[in-house]
């Protein structure tokens, strides 16, 4: 399994470092969801930031829920707003 999943609050400076980025894959998503490379450094990072482990389906559901909230907001806007911004779409986590 290439990646593991968690939720964690980005606390700013030091939340993830240059060294972390060299040691494991990391990408952040809506709902404080983080996709983390599944190696020792990645698992250690989840512990360091007090992350809550998630299975992929649960992580995906959190992201989808946030994106659907954006879609509801978008659909309620006027034509000028819709011309200025693209409609948020769902996507699959890596």
């Amino acid at each position: 399994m290439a990646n593991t999943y968690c939720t964690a609050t980005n606390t700013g400076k030091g939340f993830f470092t240059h060294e972390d980025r060299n040691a494991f894959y990391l990408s952040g998503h809506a709902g404080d969801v983080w996709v983390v490379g599944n190696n020792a450094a990645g698992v250690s990072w989840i512990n360091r930031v007090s992350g809550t482990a998630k299975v992929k389906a649960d992580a995906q559901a959190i992201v989808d829920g946030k994106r659907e909230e954006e879609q509801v907001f978008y659909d309620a806007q006027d034509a000028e707003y819709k011309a200025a911004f693209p409609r948020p779409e769902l996507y699959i986590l890596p």
Partner: protein
Amino acid sequence: MATYKGIKGFKVKNVTASPSPLNEGQVWYNTTADTLNYATVSGVPAGTWASSNPINRGSSEAIGCAQAAPMTTSLIFGGFSAPQYPPGTNAGWTEQYDGTSWATKNNLPAGRAYLGGLGTSTTAICVGGYPYPGSASTTAFNFDGTNWTAGVALASAFSGGASWGTSTAAVVAGGDPPSGPTGSQIWNGTSWTVSGAMSVGRTESGAGGCGLSTAGIITGGTGPSTAGNVTEFYNGSTWSTASGSITAPAGLRSGFMFGDQATAMYVGGYIGPTYASTNQIYDGSAWAEGSDIANGRRNGGRGGGTISGLIAGGAPSTPPIGTFTEEWSAPAAAVVKTVTVS
């Protein structure tokens, strides 16, 4: 005859060995080797992105920035604000970075988004942009580090395009009509003049340009078409197609660009339906994949260059991603060069 002190405000230092760490643009005289040296970027910088403290204003996009400011004094201003940019809430907010945190500064006199930004944190210029709802404007404001005052209007209304340069020599290019999507304007410190046309129209070009007013580089924009993937150089009056294209399957736009014609980075942006986290790096002839940002986004603020830079804010609107700051560091990219006179 012009002197270095006359131009830069300080003398070249005499040292017995090259300084460490090197900073791009640094100049010194090595008394041991009897050589005049400077630090520059060589090749593709190998760096990574790390988190820093968030902006204060909340999730925001379509932000302007002092494009020539070093990373540690980055200045961002304007843009739509959270939550999820409801109409009419674009603001004139201004924030300055100190290398660790963002501090709130005085607001722009009038809120605007999709604006251009130039200069440094003490010589910034905000150009164009538009209030929402509204249309592109020619309005400019100057920032002295404390207050914003009225500036010199653009030659043509501008919004949603790229901007780069200093308070005395700068360029805006692309964006929405009437200035864009192929148009450009050049600033000489006194007035704006309509300049040459790009070969590719670049709407949604955002922060996709950088360099000097006489040696600029631009790419991206014009999604969902891939036409904007090509690279173009600007020489102060005309545009030419350069070698290399960024790689994106459906047109990458509204990303963050750093550097110059020799070494540049195009970071993030939007490729429907996702926000890109890619970091593409240019070596003067071709684009290659670099280390990605953690949080894919578009239309945020940026500061610094290819050795030390940052991105802050931007869409997606879902809080809190639109508040995040990420710092780029590629310290190994700077190398010592010797000035020769032969």
